[in-house]
């Protein structure tokens, strides 16, 4: 099964080039487009978390919307009820979602494959109702949710959207680098060993329960950070915004981008945000087209038949093929 790519000159240059373009972006496009890219990045962070959990550690989750919601609501509550700044609140959100994920990891230990998917599915379906619960209404704002104003620009002269975008970009790049380091460490190798052969991993002395619950916590933390960013961008949290379909979007994005990869999450995030808008525009022209997500469903099925390794996997394969052609 796939390992994360080692740092080659090509990869490094490519990465820096992409980051460079990303930095320049807000000066080239409208504030609204910048805002869309911020949304894409917040999803991308959550998808990166799913890649770590499923792609590199072999644990399934069809319920990442739950952790996304934990991060989102924690950030909102910290800002609204405790007066924290958004930049501190996101740290609390990260910690909270890590904790929830870690705790969920314990029952998850007993569950394999399909059963784990089922448990996470249940979690995601139950989450909106839980968020609407009367007893919590004081904190969560009940059905109406909480209004969260966009963070003040970090540097004067930037627009709100621009500033938030750079914040999200910094976090995304940071997490990508951290993930790469993690996967290349002993812990990372242990994670992948667990994915490939849990029993052998155990006999090699890896503490399976600790590794798996920690990975779950980490993955949930990424999702929670993504949730917080999403909150800042949309200026709003409400229970129905975090229903099961968000978990589907995260899964779909991970798979489309390439679930056993780090850069795949970026492609996934862009896909989830940009494609539905593009498809909706198309429908304005051609009213007979079915809704975007019906088409994406078909696209997803075809993808999993023929290109299960996603966009990044495809890029890796094309690159490898090209190199062989040049060398041979």
């Amino acid at each position, binding site marked *: 099964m796939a390992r994360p790519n080692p740092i080659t000159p090509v990869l490094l240059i490519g990465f820096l080039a992409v980051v460079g373009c990303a930095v320049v972006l807000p000066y080239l496009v409208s504030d609204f487009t910048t805002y869309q890219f911020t949304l894409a990045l917040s999803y991308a962070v959550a998808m990166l978390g799913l890649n770590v959990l*499923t792609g590199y550690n072999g644990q*399934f989750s*069809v319920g990442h919307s739950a952790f996304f919601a934990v991060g989102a609501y924690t950030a909102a509550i910290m800002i609204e009820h405790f007066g924290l700044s958004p930049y501190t609140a996101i740290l609390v959100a990260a910690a909270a979602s890590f904790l929830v994920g870690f705790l969920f990891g314990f*029952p998850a230990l*007993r*569950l394999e*494959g*399909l*059963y784990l*998917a*089922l*448990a996470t*599915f*249940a*979690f995601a*379906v*139950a989450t909106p*109702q*839980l968020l*609407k*619960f*009367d*007893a919590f209404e004081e904190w969560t704002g009940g059905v109406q949710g909480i209004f969260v104003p966009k963070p003040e620009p970090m540097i004067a002269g930037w627009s709100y959207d621009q500033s938030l975008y750079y914040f999200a970009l910094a976090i995304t790049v940071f997490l990508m680098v951290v993930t790469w380091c993690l996967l290349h460490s002993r812990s990372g190798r242990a994670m992948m060993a667990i994915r490939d052969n849990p*029993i052998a991993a155990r006999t090699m002395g890896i503490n399976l329960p600790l590794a798996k619950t920690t990975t779950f916590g980490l993955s949930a933390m990424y999702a929670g950070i993504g949730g917080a960013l999403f909150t800042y961008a949309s200026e709003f949290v409400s229970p129905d915004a975090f229903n*099961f*379909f968000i978990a*589907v979007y995260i*899964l*779909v994005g991970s*798979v489309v981008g390439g*679930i056993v990869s780090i850069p795949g999450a970026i492609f996934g995030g862009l896909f989830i945000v940009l494609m539905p808008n593009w498809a909706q525009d198309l429908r304005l022209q051609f009213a007979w087209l*079915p*809704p*975007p*997500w*019906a088409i*994406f*469903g*078909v696209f*997803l*099925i075809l993808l*999993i*038949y023929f290109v*299960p390794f996603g966009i990044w996997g495809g890029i890796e394969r094309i690159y490898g093929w090209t190199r062989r052609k040049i060398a041979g």
Partner: protein
Amino acid sequence: MDLFFQLTLAGLAIGSIYSCIALAVVMIYQATDHFNFAQGEMAMFSTFIAWTLLGIGLPVWVAAVLAVAASFVAGIVIERTIIKPVENAPVLNQIVVFIALLMILNNVAGWIWEFTIKPFPSLFPEDLGFHSDLVSPHNLGVIALTLLVLLGIFLFFRFTRVGLAMRAAAANPDSARLVGVSVGWMLALGWGLAAAIGAVGGILVAPIVYLDPNMMSGVLLYGFAGALLGGVSSPSGAVLGGLIVGVLENWVGQYVPGGSELKLTFALILIIGVLMFKPNGIFGLTVIKRV
């Protein structure tokens, strides 16, 4: 005391519907080792088909039977076209296909019929000739009809040649091939039956929860809980599990503070609880994994 009986009977009624879904889930699981996450959306879609048939003037029982028959065919087609290619694929690929199917059905239903809530008539007349304070006519009908359907399924599997072949194909596909059974078509048949049973469940629950594309997500969750509770390797266990879960849901809703608002959380707790402490359910068999 009356309230308790009312709750319990209502619980048995909704539990019967959960049993339908649980049975559909277990049938597919036994044949193919897949959890059909799209089972709920399939049932929802079938119910909308029935609704459309009602709209063109057909009587409610005719519409129901036609919708169930159409679901049977659709189940076979879905298995042969969409599921077959990932039969032996990694589990993640299979999960993605089910989720994609769920998305397609939900969105197409929303596209055709919109997301506004619609009332759906009961199959059973309001006036039964007698009056009971303990249970509504619809619920009584639900219990009776579900029992009949489940009995029919049981007889089919126990006493017909095809039923035996399906059981054999699910239990031991290789040996089934060696006696000439077309295992692929038995799987498709299993899907068809599961889709039909799910459709029955959808048509029975729509009068209670009202018809809209998102009506089945909670029901599916309870169906899964029932299937797990009864044991996913045991169809009769699944049925019993569904009934138990339905009754428990009503008891918790009434007697546990906050219970009525947290029904889905209750289902979640049930699912995780069963998976952690009795993963084979009350009636299931232990599965030993060879190293």
